[in-house]
């Protein structure tokens, strides 16, 4: 009896860690982590998806390995250890993709080395995987990865639709093609240029806060926008203190 109860509780926690990355602790819109790839890569839906999936893979692998070795690492050298693990996985992904999925590598090649410096991965290693079991770290990695991928895809779609009037996946499958239907259609090119990234991200963040405050209002709570984000107790920024 007791065993099945603890198993059930474990399953509940696993589920909770899995879905928190989607909305409540979404890496892009709630933790506001990994802004460098977020702003640079999301010129189209396809780029966002590709970057998100590559990041998810590295995130899951590094979370698992760090959770396994978490008790062997002395806390003074944990950051270098994390970086070695993450950088190794990124290099492995880079090599494997180049060798066995060469076309995908051609499209994503420039983004892959960027994953090393993506603070989501180091952040999750520090804030979660180094303190939790392998199973929970796996759930966290999957959830955060999917949340990141969805966030990038959303941002990429918005910018591609506004900036090009199109939505293209897998190279040539057009989900939406305004220029083909409307003559002399002029897209907002600024949206795919760097300033567009800030504009789109700002609007989406504002929209997300609006939605959340509406939900809170309906439930009779007052909505407090997240101000003092501590990236879920990540201490990397305060490492020297």
């Amino acid at each position, binding site marked *: 009896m007791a065993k099945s109860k603890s198993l059930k509780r474990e399953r509940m926690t696993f589920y909770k860690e899995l879905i928190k990355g989607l909305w409540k602790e979404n890496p892009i819109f709630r933790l506001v982590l990994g802004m460098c790839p977020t702003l640079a890569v999301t010129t*189209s839906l396809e780029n966002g998806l590709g970057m998100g999936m590559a990041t998810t893979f590295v995130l899951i692998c590094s979370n698992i390995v760090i959770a396994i070795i978490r008790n062997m690492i002395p806390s003074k050298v944990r950051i270098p*250890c994390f970086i*070695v693990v993450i950088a190794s996985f990124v290099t*492995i992904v880079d090599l494997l993709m180049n*060798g066995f999925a*060469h076309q995908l590598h051609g499209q994503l090649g420039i983004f892959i080395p960027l994953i090393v410096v993506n603070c989501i991965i180091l952040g999750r290693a520090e804030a979660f995987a180094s303190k939790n079991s392998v199973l929970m770290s796996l759930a966290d990695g999957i959830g955060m990865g999917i949340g990141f991928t969805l966030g990038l895809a959303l941002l990429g779609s918005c910018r591609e639709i506004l*900036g090009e009037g199109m939505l293209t996946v897998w190279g040539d499958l057009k989900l939406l093609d305004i220029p083909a239907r409307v003559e002399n259609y002029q897209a907002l*090119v600024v949206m795919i240029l760097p300033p567009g990234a800030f504009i789109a991200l700002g609007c989406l963040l504002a929209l997300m806060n609006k939605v959340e405050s509406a939900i809170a209002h309906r439930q009779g709570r007052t909505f407090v926008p997240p101000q003092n984000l501590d990236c879920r107790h990540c201490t990397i920024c305060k490492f020297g203190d």
Partner: protein
Amino acid sequence: MKEVLKLVLVLTAICVIAGLCLALVDKLTTEPIRKAERQDTLDAIKAVLPEYDNEPDRNISEIVVGKQTNVFYVATMRQAYVGTAFAVTSKEGYGGEMKIMVGVTADDGVHAIHVLKQTETPGLGAKIEKPKFKEKFSGAPLSTTIKVKKDGGRIESITGATISSRAVCKAVSEGIDLFVKNKDAILKSDNVQ
């Protein structure tokens, strides 16, 4: 002292394991990567030349200009010369270097061009990759310099991206010039009949 020793040991152990894993993966992927990269070159050559039956990437001649080595891929069909492909680069684009494969036929015309690498503005200059722009180069005679229409040439530049369009034209023209100047050397060195 003991603590320092432990730190050093753990870090060293992790790095050694990571290094071993990387070495293993590198060994596994060297051959597939080489094959895939060769296939890339072959695909690009195929995209810019008429049908051929040799291996142009093993039938090359090199022309050295200054420090730069230009590689010319010579294609043949039943031992008869059908065309040459070569890559040209331009640093005059709007967003850094662009690299283009150009194919010329035996009857002294451009067969096609193919963009190998470009970092132009998405939505504007990046349209040089679109067939609509590239196909305007097909059939251009080698005897006249390729220019955009604004400069009195035959290529209609992309709206809002004249700089990128000009850069492509200039790079292609320069490559063709080099080819025409060295045509005898390029073709002779390859036993083309």
